[in-house]
């Protein structure tokens, strides 16, 4: 409050002249280098942490097996679903809303997709008896995405039109979605998917990159561009920063919120299809932690839990951190109990490093 917003009554250039030695006017200074700017971001810290862990695990794994093409491919495949969920969640968090139902959405989508694929089976339960495999897979993929979109739409309507707190709303739809998946699957996982689903999609690689990871990376590039350059990204963050300010600026807040939940839901549907095509079966019980993992990846990467700021690249490094740790500890022969403990500590470290960086930032600005 001490500084003057509106000074010098004489109309003049909005740039401090040489006689004006106001230290707050830094526009006359050389802008800091891109590297310096980058190092101030949370995404940078997490990337450095990722790189450090890769170096560490490369050094300690037998035959340095961590540093291999096969392991890199395994890591990319392992993070593809988390990345899709975390990217969708980053967008939601940016607008100040939450989604606990993403894992349930993924499972329900996979079940719906698998059930659709099964319709093309000649002999029930016989994976080799598909009449039209291409059509079956296509319909399955569409069913997965449609289910995800619909799930997202329901979330969006409850949150935006019903004005229900997103945490509560998605806690409810998490239960509903899980129950519906169990109901449709009759309590046991839907298996017997055509083998070509796995060979042609789930376990396939294009120029060395697993197809599921390509889907995640494509979403990453598109969302990065949207957040950085597009009006949509700006408005989403404006809503998260101050919903009432966005409303009074004439932004259609409800419409934006519904579009976001549809986007995140659709991406969960894609993740459901990936899950189906990787394992050739649904996994009813395998995704209960997915939503929280997605939150972790997004928040570690620098997307604000309070809303208003999205870091898409940070979400990538955050999602990578989880799989690097998981795989590195397994390959190093660390017992699974220790894995949990070490993972917890590294997450704490990531946040603490950021605290240090933030303290420095604050100091540098002298405020």
């Amino acid at each position: 409050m001490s500084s003057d917003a509106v000074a010098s009554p004489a109309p003049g250039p909005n740039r401090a002249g040489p006689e004006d030695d106001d230290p707050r006017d830094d526009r006359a200074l050389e802008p800091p280098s891109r590297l310096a700017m980058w190092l101030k971001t949370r995404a940078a810290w997490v990337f450095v942490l990722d790189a450090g862990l890769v170096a560490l695990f490369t050094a300690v794994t037998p035959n340095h097996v961590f540093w291999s093409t096969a392991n890199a491919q395994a890591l990319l495949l392992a993070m593809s679903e988390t990345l899709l969920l975390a990217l969708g969640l980053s967008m939601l968090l940016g607008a100040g809303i939450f989604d606990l139902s993403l894992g349930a959405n993924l499972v329900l989508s996979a079940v719906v997709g698998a059930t659709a694929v099964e319709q093309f089976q000649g002999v029930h339960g016989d994976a080799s008896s598909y009449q039209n495999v291409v059509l079956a897979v296509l319909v399955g993929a569409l069913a997965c995405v449609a289910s995800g979109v619909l799930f997202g739409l329901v979330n969006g309507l409850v949150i935006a039109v019903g004005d229900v707190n997103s945490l509560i709303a998605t806690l409810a739809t998490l239960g509903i979605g899980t129950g519906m998946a169990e109901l449709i699957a009759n309590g046991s996982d839907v298996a017997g998917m055509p083998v070509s689903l796995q060979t042609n999609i789930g376990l396939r690689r294009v120029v060395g990159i697993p197809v599921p990871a390509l889907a995640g990376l494509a979403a990453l590039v598109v969302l990065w561009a949207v957040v950085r350059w597009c009006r949509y990204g700006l408005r989403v963050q404006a809503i998260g920063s101050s919903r009432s300010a966005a409303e009074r600026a004439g932004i259609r807040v409800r419409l934006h919120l519904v579009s976001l939940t549809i986007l995140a839901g659709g991406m969960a549907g894609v993740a459901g299809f990936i899950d189906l095509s990787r394992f050739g079966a649904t996994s009813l019980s395998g995704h209960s932690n997915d939503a929280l993992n997605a939150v972790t990846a997004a928040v570690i990467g620098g997307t604000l839990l309070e809303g208003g700021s999205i870091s898409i690249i940070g979400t990538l490094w955050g999602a990578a951190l989880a799989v690097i740790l998981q795989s590195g500890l397994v390959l190093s022969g660390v017992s699974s109990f220790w894995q949990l403990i070490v993972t917890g500590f590294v997450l704490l470290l990531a946040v603490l490093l950021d605290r240090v960086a933030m303290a420095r930032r604050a100091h540098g600005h002298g405020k």
Partner: protein
Amino acid sequence: MAPTSASAATVAIGSRHVSKRFGHVQALRDATVTVPPGKVVALVGDNGAGKSTLLRALLGLSQPDSGEIVIRDKSVTLHSVRDGLAQGVDAVHQDLALAPHLSVVDNMFLGHEHLRGGGLQHVGVLARREMAERADAALRELSIQLPSLSVPVRALSGGQRQAVAVARAVMWSRTAILMDEPTAALGTRQSEIVISLIRTVAERGLGVLVVSHDLPRILTVADTVTVLWRGETVLEAPGRDLTVPDLVATMVGYRAGEAV
């Protein structure tokens, strides 16, 4: 950037006999206010007199139960704040309505973003350079100095934020600006600067409606003072004819002909 379209009208913005009820509370009973183009009208009243409710109705943030809203001499129905914005009515809200995480430029263009031309327009790519240049020009025009236009607004001081909110409203309003307690958060010197900004804005032909508790200061700038008392317009008089004690008496109801 010469908002003169409102000048031909006799009323830039106003209300006629507006009433609004919230449950058991009759927030507005018979509220009439008239803001001619190029004039500053002060809207004063005690707490609960209905000032904010009237402002919200004039902005399209809520709809009156009866009576009419007038913009550029025409009776209008504002279904949402977008309708008000489309008529060139903008506001400096008491809480400033800024998005703290966004930059000064992004805040100034919120809801009015400029897009790049060509094929990029269809995907909504922002014309950031153009936006930055126009924001800079708009701030210069009001002689507002800020350390940087790319810092998030939350990094600015209270006075600087106030300046951004005023500059934004000036930039987009073509008809009228409504200001809710524009000096409440400011120190003496900054308040004086905002008051002179109000003058400048009116001289451009915009109607300016200012809600303020800062009576001595507002009397120096107001062409007309409108007093609301329990949701009703009880006085409309030229600012130069009024003294602060008179005004206070009216605000608390002594001149309204009813016992308090």
